[in-house]
């Protein structure tokens, strides 16, 4: 292993006492604090903030219109053009989910259903939003392009039960999504 010997900088007697440097540091800190106090924080203008710091005042100020398309908010299920639920409950998302937030109960599509040829769909699909870490693994692993992370990030509730998104809620958030791969087309 190559050893590199680094020479420590030689300090003068004044520097060795350190007080000069510490004092200078405190002046810099104070100056910055003062600038911040009078509303001249760096980047305050660009971020549409109050000026007192670069923090946005969240409920009053929002950044929604600048959210990118790939923003990873709450996960949701989608339906295709023909309003078929795309999820076939293969449970890969449940498997991959790092915090084990997803719980699926698979179910069979009855033979008299319009989409009986798909055979399988979730009977229940629960995502515990207290557990969800918004990693997007479920979206990545989904072979049917049925689950997406939507830009909604305001997920609140006053009970634990309320924070578990069930199937209806997931479809409500996800809505219809067109132009995706459709494996269950007419040829199938």
């Amino acid at each position, binding site marked *: 292993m190559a050893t590199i010997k680094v020479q420590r900088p030689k300090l003068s007697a004044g520097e060795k006492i350190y007080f000069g440097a510490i004092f200078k540091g405190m002046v810099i800190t104070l100056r910055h604090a003062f600038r911040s106090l009078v509303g001249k924080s760096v980047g305050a203008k660009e971020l549409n903030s109050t000026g007192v710091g670069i923090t946005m005042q969240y409920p009053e100020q929002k950044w929604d219109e600048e959210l990118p398309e790939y923003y990873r908010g709450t996960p949701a299920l989608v339906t295709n053009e023909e309003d078929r639920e795309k999820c*076939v*409950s*293969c*449970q*890969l998302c*449940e*498997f991959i989910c790092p915090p084990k937030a997803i719980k699926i109960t*698979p*179910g*069979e599509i009855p*033979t008299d259903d319009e989409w*009986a*040829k*798909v*055979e*399988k769909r979730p009977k229940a699909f629960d995502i515990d939003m207290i557990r969800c870490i918004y990693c997007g693994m479920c979206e990545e692993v989904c*072979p*049917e392009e049925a689950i997406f992370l939507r830009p909604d990030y305001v997920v609140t509730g006053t009970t634990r039960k309320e924070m578990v998104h069930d199937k209806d809620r997931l479809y409500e958030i996800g809505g219809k999504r067109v132009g995706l791969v459709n*494996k269950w087309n007419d*040829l*199938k």
Partner: protein
Amino acid sequence: MSENAPAVEEKKLPKDLAAENGMVNVQIDGHWIQVPRGTRMIEAAKIAEKEIPHYCYHPKLSSPGNCRMCLVQMGMPPRPAPGEDPKYGEDGYQEIGWMPRPVIACANTVAENMGIRTGGELVEKTREGVMEFLLINHPLDCPICDQAGECKLQEFSVEHGRGESRFKETKIKKPKNVDIGQNIRLDDERCIMCSRCIRFMDEVAEDPVLGFSQRGTHTSVTVHPGHRLDNNYSLNTADICPVGALTSNDFRFQMRVWFLKETKTIDVNCGTGANTVVWTRGNEIFRVTPRQNDDVNSAWIPDSHRLSFHELQNDSRLTAPMILKDGKHVEVSNLEAINKAAEGLGMRQPNEVAVIASGRQSNEELYLAKKIATALGTDLLTIVPRQGESDGKLISADRNPNTTGAGLIFGIDDPTAKLDAIREGVSTGRIKALIVFNENLLDEAGFKQEDLAKLEHLVTTHTHANPTAAAAQVVLPGAGWAEKRATYVNVTGRLQRANQATIAPGGTRDDWETLGALLNKLDKDYQLPSSMDSVFNALAKENETFTGQTFGSIGDLGVVITETGVTIPLLDQEKKRKESGIIVG
């Protein structure tokens, strides 16, 4: 190998050394090994720890060689010209002349000085081609297919496939989701025509209802007209199906297999004690599949036994100890229930008490039951006989899983002998207190409801609510067969081990704990057992048939501890097929 053979003047050739033991020398991927004469090439490769991918081959079935997945390159020494002696190299082997075309490894047997290549360009290209053909009409509905995760087509297409499809045309449409039997669902699009199911129904189940129809790419598996796949062994076809063409109706869309935890255990629905694997997620059993044990159940299990696990998970399970107070059962603590039970039993005269154990109990529980009977001073100890008719395959006539064990532990030939005496004693009112372990007396035991009412003190353990429990003064909840570690002795005298797959519901304790606590109350000298193993060890110490055995020594496949002279019909049939060379076995 005969390294220590006496030194002879002329050095023996490897082929002669092998021939002395009925073996042949085979070179597999460059290494010479000795395998028994007549071994299939695929089995020889297994001995050499080389996996040859295959679909249609199954050691318990005949080998039609129709999937072509097991193609390997074979080579033999060149045939010497007339008058020419075979040439042997320095290592004593002849040079191998490799064949230009691959052969199937499943139906060909090995020969002396044969060479097998399970890899290499030719073999790999061949497999790639076979995989591509197999996948041409395969629908790729893995996300909804129950086989996904344990599908050989998935596994081999990853290992040996080319990774992408060149097939631009429309795939052939075949019937999907076909109801062909009570327990089996057929999806013809997924079928790769290996014919395992057809051969199983023909050769093992002896109910040939399946067959191929159509030709070429339109070939599909169907049931013969007018027949249905309603055989009691039909679910085995779903097990051996390498793809998801045949799936279990019971397990259909219940859970993906990769979530399931496997527990090796045994079946307790009859005296055969078929070896099984219980698949659980959390505390729920999702399915039971057979586990290969060539001395018990080969690789199969009847459907009726396989599906019996649902009974364990139904709503009528007892979950807490109860005692009768003012004509109503109230839940109490374990300690209180056991105290109450012991109180009512301990004050009786020995001839007023009887113990009805169960042939469904494990050896350890029967051992404790016998100790309880001894502590009470009574010799009225019995199990309830449960006879049925053998199906001539795996289901034995004795539907108790542990009649043999009960006989060994009670030390009598017929452990059911005292039942009549007890029944009579109860009905005449001579017997005032009765302990019943896991038996509903109104069923096979033949008791009458009014007889039970005559008892002053009835203590029962049950897994499920039933009329006997309803009549009891003390009811203790029992753990089901998948909820405890235990040993059983099957009809052939084989000691087998069941393992715990799930946890008993509610406040249910293991049966050995309940029995041990009860025994401790009745016999102050008896120390509470510290674990299941200690109960078994005590049994092994006292009973010479079990001497030397421990939980660990039993192993996954069990050990024979006694001779009963009973054989399992299915194994006899299999033996015949093996002797005639139809199957590998």
